[in-house]
């Protein structure tokens, strides 16, 4: 077995959490149909051997490909104008500069490579905003694996450029018409495909959700964000950050941004969820016009794990909503649910309007067009900067090119200070 560079992290209990049995306090577990259990056991074994044990040099190859194909490490950039605006040092962890334009490649490349090591012949994945789908499609093309992506019909309409990118990389994109046609339905449909094809197919789940070992495995692949940021912050600011801010949907960006800091008690961790239009739920219609499962959800079981969910009083899963399809999910990773209960992570909700304002502010003041998911973190920064410490790290989880059509449409409906006039574009670009 090759020596790994994880000697430091293995002594940190936060990084060990969940690895053994997939339990995070009362959350986590493996609530899946029996047909999937053998595949999940096989995957658990592969995770232990290749990811934790670096068998056959898996982690070395993963890191090398993340560097050469992905472009890691990504910079930690001091944001000059935002630092001035908020009167504290604001640093941006630039995952938008990762190949593909979002943090999603960290996980997708790891899992597709793992599938290859496991001898699987086919990749399937779900996608919400299309960022995980495009990352998986890129990784599958890079590693020569056939790939099918399930995507809600509504999301396909909201994220057309990403659909095109997946097809350019040779993936098959299958529309999911059930329910509201968003991420929740796409995950259910991908699980159904997997139940039928489990013997030769690997399901590349896109977030820290689902049955064990997915939540820990995806966290471990995404942890590179905070491992780098932690060293970079110490290098640039001479100290750990006082606060780390990351947007949270399913939670892969969030756990990736927090993982290396969980054991640093002095670092406050803020998970920014999509507050949608309101935090009130419409029980009769089965709709929660937000995606704030950490902030407003109740414990339940969905998609293989016990976690916090948006559900009605009977336990039916609510249709979530967010202006950003990447945050539009009724559940959240079980480890985040646990860290919130423990008081280690603070959940906050930022509504559609504040996120859109954050989008325009970052675009204007720093020359960075963020994804609408990411924009929620900047909405939080605007509303709560006074409560934060001196050195703040915000993860720019992705770039906003994919969102331009939604932004034009949503901006045109609102009166946002400093936003350009969108009326000339509303016929489409």
């Amino acid at each position, binding site marked *: 077995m090759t020596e790994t560079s994880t000697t430091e992290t293995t002594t940190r209990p936060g990084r060990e959490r969940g690895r053994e049995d997939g339990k995070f306090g009362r959350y986590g577990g493996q609530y899946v149909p029996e047909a999937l259990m053998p595949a999940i056991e096989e995957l658990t074994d592969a995770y232990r051997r290749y990811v934790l044990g670096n068998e056959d040099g898996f982690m070395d190859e993963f890191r090398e490909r993340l560097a050469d194909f992905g472009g890691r490490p990504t910079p930690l950039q001091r944001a000059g104008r935002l630092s001035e605006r908020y009167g504290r040092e604001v640093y941006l962890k630039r995952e938008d500069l990762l190949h593909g334009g979002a943090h999603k490649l960290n996980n997708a490349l790891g899992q597709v490579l793992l599938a290859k090591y496991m001898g699987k012949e086919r990749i399937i994945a779900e996608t919400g905003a299309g960022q995980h789908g495009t990352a998986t499609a890129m990784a599958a093309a890079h590693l020569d694996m056939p790939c099918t992506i399930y995507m809600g019909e509504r999301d396909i309409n909201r994220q057309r450029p990403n659909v095109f990118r997946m097809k350019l990389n040779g993936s098959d994109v299958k529309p999911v018409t059930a329910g509201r046609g968003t991420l929740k339905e796409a995950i259910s449909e991908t699980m159904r495909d997997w139940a039928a094809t489990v013997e030769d197919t690997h399901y590349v789940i896109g977030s820290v959700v689902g049955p064990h070992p997915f939540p820990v495995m995806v966290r471990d692949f995404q942890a590179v964000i905070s491992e780098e940021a932690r060293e970079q912050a110490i290098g640039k600011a001479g100290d750990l950050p006082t606060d780390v801010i990351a947007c949270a949907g399913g939670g892969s960006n969030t756990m990736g941004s927090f993982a290396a800091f969980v054991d640093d008690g002095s670092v406050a961790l803020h998970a920014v969820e999509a507050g949608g239009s309101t935090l009130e739920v419409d029980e009769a219609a089965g709709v929660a016009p937000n995606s704030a499962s950490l902030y407003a959800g109740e414990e339940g*079981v969905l998609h293989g794990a016990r976690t916090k969910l948006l559900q009605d009083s009977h336990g039916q899963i609510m249709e979530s909503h967010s202006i950003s399809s990447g945050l539009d999910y009724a559940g959240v990773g079980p480890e985040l649910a646990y860290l919130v209960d423990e008081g280690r992570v603070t959940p906050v909700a930022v509504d559609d309007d504040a996120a859109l304002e954050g989008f325009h502010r970052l675009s204007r003041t720093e020359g960075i067009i963020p994804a609408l998911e990411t924009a929620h973190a900047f909405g939080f920064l605007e509303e709560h900067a006074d409560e934060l410490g001196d050195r703040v790290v915000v993860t720019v989880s992705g770039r906003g090119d994919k969102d331009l059509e939604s932004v034009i449409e949503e901006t045109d409906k609102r009166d946002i200070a400093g936003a350009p006039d969108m009326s000339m574009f509303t016929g489409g670009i």
Partner: protein
Amino acid sequence: MPGDEERATTDDAAPKTGNSATIAAAFADGPAYVPYLAVGDPDYESSLAYVEALDRGGADVIELGLPFSEPIAEGPTIQGAVVRALEGGMTPDRFFAFVEELDVDAPLVCMTYYNLIYQWGDSDGPRSFVERAAEVGLQGLVVPDLPAEEADPLREACDEFGLDLVFIVAPTTEGERLERIMEQVSGYVYVQARLGTTGAKSDVSDRTTESLDRLRGYDVPKAVGFGISTGEHAERIVAGGADGIIVGSALVDIVADGVENDRPTAAVAERLEALSRELKAGAERGFAARTADAAPGDAR
């Protein structure tokens, strides 16, 4: 075959009598016909008539689906039923009222997903759901997203209130996993005929026979489901060693056809009863063929 070595060790597994005497009786003499419908599809009143039609058609056990918004183990047919039932206003409370109102002879098993069981009632955990299920006369539960590893709390509640807990065994289940499930199962084991989700198929997989072979050493009735839609399928499956057949999508198709073509409830009920008779007769032919061939000592 990978299962061969393990199977020898399972012959001394403790016989499972199950908690429900009526379910045990349903499998005791001849093959059991176990139909499934989603309760409330497409509305409460029609659904009552449909389930009662299954009973008249010869059902030995009836699986009643309590619809959940994310039915990850179901194919398109049953997903459609679940959507119709939820749109028709079905809730766990109405489901229990439905079971109380139902006038049937066959023992009833509730099939649903764990979140609905977990959330029901005031207390955390599955106990209050199971208590209420027992009150309204349900005899068992099938929970497709609850593997044996996570089932202890539900198992305890089922034992406390005298319900059976049915587990699904997939074509990929073998070795230690199979033993773990067989320690937890009671009533009958649901043998999944092929991989994938529920749905009627024109052929019945060879893997059914392999699965039944793996289960031979366990003294619990084996009911095969996934893909059975005709009397001929039923005959072949029972002749191949199954103690019962579970049929869902083929019946749901009749309900869906009734919705699409706006057929009267009585006409849909009649078709459900007729297909039930065909399936039950097929199962009995298969059983007769098997017992004619069978060596003495093969009690089932």
